[in-house]
């Protein structure tokens, strides 16, 4: 697994994207476990890390989903740091304990963290060994969700990347949709593709990690999320054809996204229009409801989920918001370039973070709405600014026609609230 990630390379001097370096306030890739474990119902995520890692997932998940979730942390202690051989034995013991408790687990992800990486605990080899030991019962994969390698949603990229070599080979003509979508959104897309005669359609991640979708030279791929870059590159290496498209946010984004598949499948534009007419009309009408509230309002994005650029495109072009600045954790020209190009050239777009300077700018510009991480929202609100915290955007169904208005509503709500509150 050669996950060469953006955070590890020198930045491109992309036109229209500046680079900012300094203290960050971003989650690490472990956070992805919070939605990945819900998506893949037969998978368990075992972080090999520290108490900090355990505390991070617990805090990000909120204390709402107590009970026995399908994730846990193998917390390293002083004695584990003494010698590596010992560490592998310990890991085997912990995995045995876990699988004993949870006979329902079919796929186990060993998730690397900063501590496991700094002590060079080789989880890939451990996963191979454990896969052999539990052959026929559990498949064991590994990936890094560490904060020194990944930011926030990149954890999903690494998780999916670890599955690519396991995906079976096919010569069939199929469509693969890559990046977690809420089940309800998946079902909507499935229906539209069916109407268009596009298929069979697979989704990665699948609802059951046991049944991985097949790949091959006749498989083409749509990206549902902008943060699955390395997975996409690896799938391309396995012969998959990438269908460049806007990300399916908003009516136009979704339409462009479907169109990419339709054209590749030889579906006529007329047929596409016909199949999407009803939902498009419905969505445009629903959006109209929020447009007056959002129109002309100034919005700034702090880097967080990697969804910032396509969101800015949707809020600018479909909701009439005035874009002030857009920050992203990292910029990948191959998979983000076209979305950047759809934003005004003069709009400041920055990659990376210096959180204090970015906040200085927010305080100076005073946007009507600031999209930011969870830790920053209340202090900004207290300073009189309205915020939309972005982790919700990763957890909620926001893609597709039927969700376009819901997405707009997420941004309209803080503004409405401000208007209503008289205290």
């Amino acid at each position, binding site marked *: 697994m050669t996950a060469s990630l953006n955070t590890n390379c020198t930045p491109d001097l992309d036109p229209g994207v500046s680079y900012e370096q300094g203290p960050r306030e971003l989650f690490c890739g472990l956070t992805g476990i919070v939605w990945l474990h819900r998506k893949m119902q037969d998978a368990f995520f075992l972080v090999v890390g520290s*108490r900090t890692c355990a505390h991070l997932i617990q805090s990000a998940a909120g204390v709402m989903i107590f*009970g026995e979730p399908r994730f846990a942390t193998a*917390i390293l202690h002083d004695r584990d*740091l003494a010698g590596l051989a010992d560490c592998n034995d310990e890991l085997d013991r912990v995995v045995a304990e876990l699988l004993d408790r949870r006979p329902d687990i079919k796929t186990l992800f060993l998730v690397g963290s900063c*501590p496991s990486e700094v002590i060079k605990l080789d989880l890939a080899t451990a996963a191979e060994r454990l896969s052999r030991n539990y052959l026929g019962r559990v498949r064991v994969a590994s990936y890094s969700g*560490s904060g*020194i390698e990944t930011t926030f949603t990149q954890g999903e990229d690494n998780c999916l990347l670890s599955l690519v070599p396991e995906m079976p080979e096919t010569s069939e003509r199929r469509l693969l949709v890559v990046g977690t979508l809420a089940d309800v959104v998946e079902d909507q897309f499935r229906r539209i593709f069916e109407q268009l005669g596009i298929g069979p359609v697979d989704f990665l991640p699948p609802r059951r990690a046991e049944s991985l979708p097949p790949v091959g030279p006749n498989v083409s791929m749509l990206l549902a999320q902008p943060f699955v870059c390395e997975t996409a590159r690896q799938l391309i290496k396995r012969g998959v054809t990438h269908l460049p498209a806007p990300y399916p946010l908003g009516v136009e984004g979704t339409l462009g996204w479907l169109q990419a598949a339709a054209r590749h499948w030889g579906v006529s534009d007329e047929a596409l229009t016909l199949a999407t007419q009803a939902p498009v009309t419905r969505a445009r009408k629903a959006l109209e409801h929020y447009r007056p509230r959002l129109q002309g309002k100034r919005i700034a994005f702090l880097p967080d989920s990697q969804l910032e650029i396509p969101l800015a495109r949707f809020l600018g072009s479909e909701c009439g918001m005035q874009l002030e600045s857009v920050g992203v954790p990292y910029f990948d020209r191959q998979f983000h370039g076209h979305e950047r190009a759809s934003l005004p050239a003069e709009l400041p777009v920055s990659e990376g973070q210096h959180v204090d300077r970015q906040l200085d700018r927010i305080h100076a510009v005073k946007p009507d709405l600031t999209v930011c991480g969870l*830790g920053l*929202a209340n202090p900004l609100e207290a300073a009189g600014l309205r915020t939309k915290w972005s982790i919700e955007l990763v957890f909620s169904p926001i893609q597709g026609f039927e969700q376009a208005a819901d997405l707009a509503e997420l941004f309209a709500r803080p503004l409405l609230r401000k208007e209503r509150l008289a205290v």
Partner: protein
Amino acid sequence: MELTVWTYEGPPHVGAMRIATSMRDVHYLLHAPQGDTYANLLFTMIERRDQRPPVTYTTFQARDLGGDTANMVTSMLKETYERFKPQVMLVGESCTAELIQDQPGTLAQGMVANGELPVPVVPLELPAYSRKENWGASETMYQMVRGLLLSQVPPPGTQRPERDAGRPPLVNLLGPSSLGFRCRDDVREISSLLSQVGVEVNVIAPDGASPQDLLKIPEADFNCCLYPETALLTCQWLKRSFGQPFTQTVPIGVGATRDFLAEVAGLAGTETSDSAGDSRLPWYSRSIDSTYLTGKRVFIFGDATHALAAARIAHEELAFEVVGLGTYSREFARDVRKAARDYGVEPLITDNYLEVEDRVTELQPELVLGTQMERHIAKRLGIPCAVISAPVHVQDFPARYSPQMGFEGANVIFDTWVHPLMMGLEEHLLAMFRDDFEFNDSAPSHLGHQPVADTPQPVPAPAEDGDVSWSQDAEQELRKIPFFVRGKARRNTERFAREQNLHTVTLDTLYDAKAHFSR
């Protein structure tokens, strides 16, 4: 390596953050990767702080590791000082940085020595692979106080001068901190109690104190160690160094508050007076509608301070029966073990949530007093519950005044503990009358679990599920039993049936079992 599902405490640097965030004019430089910044949301979301915690993270990445991460520390120290101009800087590292051994504390001290950093530095070494959050908070508070006051410590053997009779006794309140359980209101309650008995508060720390304030600590005649988890170490050092005695009783509950006031009077050299008022708890507890509280079986788990206090209140002030007592604070395990022995129960010293869950399931108490974690356990098992201790959730920062300490705290505790029981009773009545058209079980339950009537019990099914079945009349009879004991009745009956080699529970089996198990 230890398999962990949920943790009661964060890593020790989060404890240090709690101290830094509690104080004014302090900034914490933390050598840590970006993901560790999640900890900010504990303060801004859970506690609804209106400021970012005063913490700057170096957020080094993999690509920096080969290079000069130490350099990141020094340049960020300068930048952070320039931006925030704190009176004191805490400098430390989280788990990952501990492994790369840049020793940020030493680096910062070096910069202070050669004039590059014009601010006092308190270096923190908080071993992340063996210690936890409360230890980190305690150690940070101690290092901070000691670091600032060391130069003031008189030579050993120096007597504390007698208090000038014209000056009221002065006391410091030590331990209240950010993310602590109800600290904000406890401090207000205790300050007002003390002022009613003529004792003046000198410094409250860490909450709201600046380093300047800490310098005034030795001026007080004695200290109140309000939260031993955070402040005991500091109080012990102040006693050794400045001859300042400190209170041993944590004033949670009526009895403990009275003991605390007596202790205060002793240390202040004043008369014990009852001018501090009293609580309604004693009368409410005696009034006849509290009779049904007698012998309620209660399971208690939390940090040591709150668990111990809760056990005393439950036992002495509400006449409950303590059936389980435990803590995740290993540092105070000895006290909890001793108390558990006194109540005749097996102590549970663990930070493994699953063990606590097993114990609650096994004991089937009628009330659980615990943390947010136990609240979830209790919710799943359909047992009434009240939260008494950190780790906290946003609900543990109520808008209204609701201390745990002092006489008002005792009032709050009476209400919060008795309410879920009383509501449970009310639901029982509702269920009894459910055939009346006005009442029905689809009414939403305040306990958060499913409506009572025909839903499957949230109680986990017995391990050998399926080997005992219920006859229809027995099943119907079972439903007439109040829901909060129904799970237990079902399990006991099934156990009884199994012991008797019966495959079907009949009406007779149900009552045979009841007779068998009745105490």
